C-alpha cells in the first residue's frame, strides 16, 4: 500500500530536511514546500535516491497568508502529516530598534505558521484524520531579555498548537508540538553552543517521527530541556527579572 505524503513547510531548514529524511526512510512520499523551492532540487534528488520514495517541490511563503487556502487546495495530494518548521530568529538588538524587523520575526514564527496550519487543520478535520506538527521552541517557554521577540512569537505559536490540539481532539486529527532546545543548524552556525545540550538535526527528525507514530502531544529535544525549562519557568519573576540568562 502506498502511503499518503508528508508535507514539510519551510523545507530549506536543516531540521525540516532531517524530518523529511526520517519519514522518507519509513516509505512516506515527501512534499517539500519553501520559498525558492527550486533550490531544493538536490535535496529532492538525494531523498529520492537514498530512500527510494517520490519527492515533490512546492512554492510556499508563510508570510503570504492570503495564499494559504489556495496552497492547500492546489497540493496534488492532501498530506497525511504536515510539519511546519518555518521560523526566523532575527537579531534581538535590531528587533528592539526597528519595529518592522520585530514584526517580521513575530509574523514569521507565529502568524505565518499558525495560518498555514489552520488551513490544513480545516482540510484534515473535513477528511477526519491526519497529524499536524508545529516546530516551536523552548524560547517560547519564558521571555528572556536576549531573545524575547523571537521567544514571544514562539510562545504564541506554542499556545496556538495547544489550542488546536484541544479543538481537534475529538475529530481524529492529532497535533504535535516539537520544542527543540539548541540544534546545530544554519540558524545557530555562528553561536557557541554547549555540546551536551545541542541536538543534531537528525535527532529532531527521529524524535518527531516517534512523536507522530506514538501520538505524543508535546516533546522536548533533547529531553533534558524539559527539566531545564521547568526550572526556568518556576523562577519567581522578582528574581528572574534581575538575572541575565
Amino acid at each position, binding site marked *: 500500500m502506498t502511503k499518503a505524503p508528508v508535507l514539510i513547510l519551510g523545507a530549506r531548514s536543516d531540521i525540516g530536511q532531517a524530518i523529511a529524511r526520517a519519514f522518507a526512510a519509513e516509505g512516506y512520499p515527501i512534499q517539500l514546500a519553501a520559498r525558492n523551492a527550486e533550490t531544493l532540487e*538536490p*535535496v529532492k*534528488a*538525494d531523498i529520492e*535516491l*537514498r*530512500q*527510494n520514495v517520490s519527492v515533490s517541490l512546492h512554492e510556499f511563503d508563510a508570510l503570504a497568508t492570503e495564499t494559504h487556502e489556495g496552497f492547500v487546495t492546489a497540493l496534488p495530494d492532501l498530506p497525511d502529516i504536515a510539519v511546519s518548521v518555518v521560523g526566523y530568529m532575527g537579531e534581538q538588538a535590531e528587533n528592539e530598534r526597528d519595529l518592522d524587523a520585530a514584526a517580521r520575526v513575530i509574523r514569521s514564527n507565529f502568524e505565518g505558521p499558525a495560518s498555514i496550519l489552520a488551513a490544513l487543520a480545516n482540510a484534515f478535520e473535513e477528511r477526519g484524520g491526519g497529524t499536524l506538527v508545529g516546530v516551536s521552541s523552548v524560547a517560547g517557554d519564558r521571555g528572556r531579555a536576549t531573545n524575547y521577540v523571537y521567544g514571544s512569537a514562539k510562545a504564541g505559536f506554542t499556545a496556538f498548537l495547544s489550542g488546536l490540539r484541544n479543538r481537534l481532539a475529538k475529530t481524529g486529527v492529532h497535533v504535535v508540538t516539537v520544542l527543540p532546545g539548541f540544534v546545530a543548524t*544554519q540558524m545557530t*552556525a555562528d553561536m557557541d553552543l554547549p555540546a551536551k545540550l545541542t541536538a543534531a538535526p537528525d535527532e529532531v527528525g527521529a524524535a518527531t517521527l516517534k512523536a507522530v507514530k506514538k501520538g505524543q502531544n508535546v516533546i522536548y529535544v533533547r529531553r533534558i530541556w524539559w527539566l531545564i525549562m521547568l526550572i526556568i519557568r518556576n523562577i519567581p519573576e522578582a528574581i528572574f527579572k534581575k538575572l541575565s540568562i
Partner: protein
Amino acid sequence: MKLSGWGRYPVHDARVETPRDEADVRALVTGKRQAIARGNGRAYGDSAINLSATIDMRGLNRMLGFDAKTGQLTVEAGVILGDIIAAFLPRGWFPMVTPGTKFVSVGGAIAADVHGKNHHKDGSFRNSVDWVEVMGADGTVTRCSPRDNTALFDHTLGGMGLTGVILRAALRLRPVETAWIRQITRPAASLKDAMDIFEDAKDATYSVAWIDCLATGRNLGRSLVTLGEHASLEDLSTANRKAPFATPKTRTRSVPLDFPTFALNKFSLRAFNAAYYKAGLRQQGTRLVDWDSYFYPLDAILDWNRIYGARGFAQFQCVLPLEASEAGLSELLDTIASAGSGSFLAVLKRFGAQQSAFSFPMEGYTLALDFPISAKTHALLEDLDAITLAHGGRFYLAKDSRMSADTLAHSDARVPAFQSQRTENDWTRFSSVQSQRLAL
C-alpha cells in the same frame, strides 16, 4: 580546533570551515588563505589538515542522480561510501572499488585514488570515475574526465586535494546479484608461498593476505590469503535466496578508552598474531561471508584507532615493483620482526598495472602495517623507508604522517612534474601540512 587524521598523530590546531554548498566553498577558496579539503578524516596522517583553512566537505553530501541502465551515480564529494552501499546494495549495486573502510568520502577516495582488494583486476578508484568537478583557486568549476581536461583529471586522481576542491563526481557502480561474498582462505607457510598463491589467483576478483609480521625464521611471512567473488543467487541457500540483499546486521562495538601503552608489547602482539593465524587455519576453504564482514572487518569496532593508545600510531604502506618484491618484502619483514614492534594487522596485496600521474599503486606488491608512535617507531620507519627506496618502491601518502621531503623525492620520479603542474595551473593555493612537509 584540534585536528588529526585517523592515526591521531600528528595533532594540529587548525581552522576548520564547514561549507554547505558550492557558493560557500567558493567564498573560502577565493580568499587569500591557503586551504585544503577534508573528507571523513580517514587518511592516517596530516594530508587533510591545513592550519589556516581546512575545508570539511561533509556538508556537501547529496546524492544527485542515478542511471539504472549504466549504474552511473552522481554525488557530491562529501557523500560517504557506506551511505552509497546502504542506498544501492538493496537495489543490486556495489562500489567498483572500495578501501578497507566504508567510512570514506567520495572526495577522499578520489583524492587518494584508493585501491581495494581487486586492484590487480579492476585497477584503482579512478577506473570507476566517469568525471569529477573540481573548484580551482579562482572559484571556477571545471569538469574533467579521461577525455576532457585530462591533465586536471590525471592529477586530481591521487593528487591528495592539491589540485583544488572536488565538488561532485560521477561513479560507476557494479551490478551484483547478492550481498554475499564467496570467500576462499588459503594459509601460506612463508612469504614465497603467499606470493605464489597471489600469482596463481590473478583471475580472482578480490585477493588480499593478512601477514603475521612477528613470525621469524622459517615462518617469516606466514600469511592467510583470502580470495573472494561476489556470490551469485545459486551460491546462496534457498532461505537466503528469497532476500539476497539481506545480511545479518553487523554488531558494532566501540573502544571505550585509549589502551594503556603497556598493553601493547611484543609479547601481546606476538600472541595476537599467532592466535589470528591459528584461527584462520580453522577457516580454510570456501565460505559465504556477508559484504560488511568481508570488506570492512575493522569497521565493526568503531574507534579502533584508540587501541594504540593516546599517543596515536603511524601506518607504513609501501609498494615494491614486481621484480624486487620478494627480496624487498623479506628484508622489510625481517626488520620489523626483529624490532619486535609489529602491529595487530599487517596486510599484503598484489597490485596490477596502474596508469595515472600521481596515484600510489604500481604493478607489484604492497605491504601495510601500523605501529604505535614512539621514538623507536620513528627509527624503525626510517629503516623501512630506506629498504623501500633501495628496492625501487614508493609510499602511500594517505597513510604517511612523518616521511621527509627527501625520501619522497627519492622514491618517486613523478614529483618534479607534479610540482610544476601545481605552479603552472595555479594549484598552489591548496596545501596541507603534509604537502608542506613534503615540499609538494
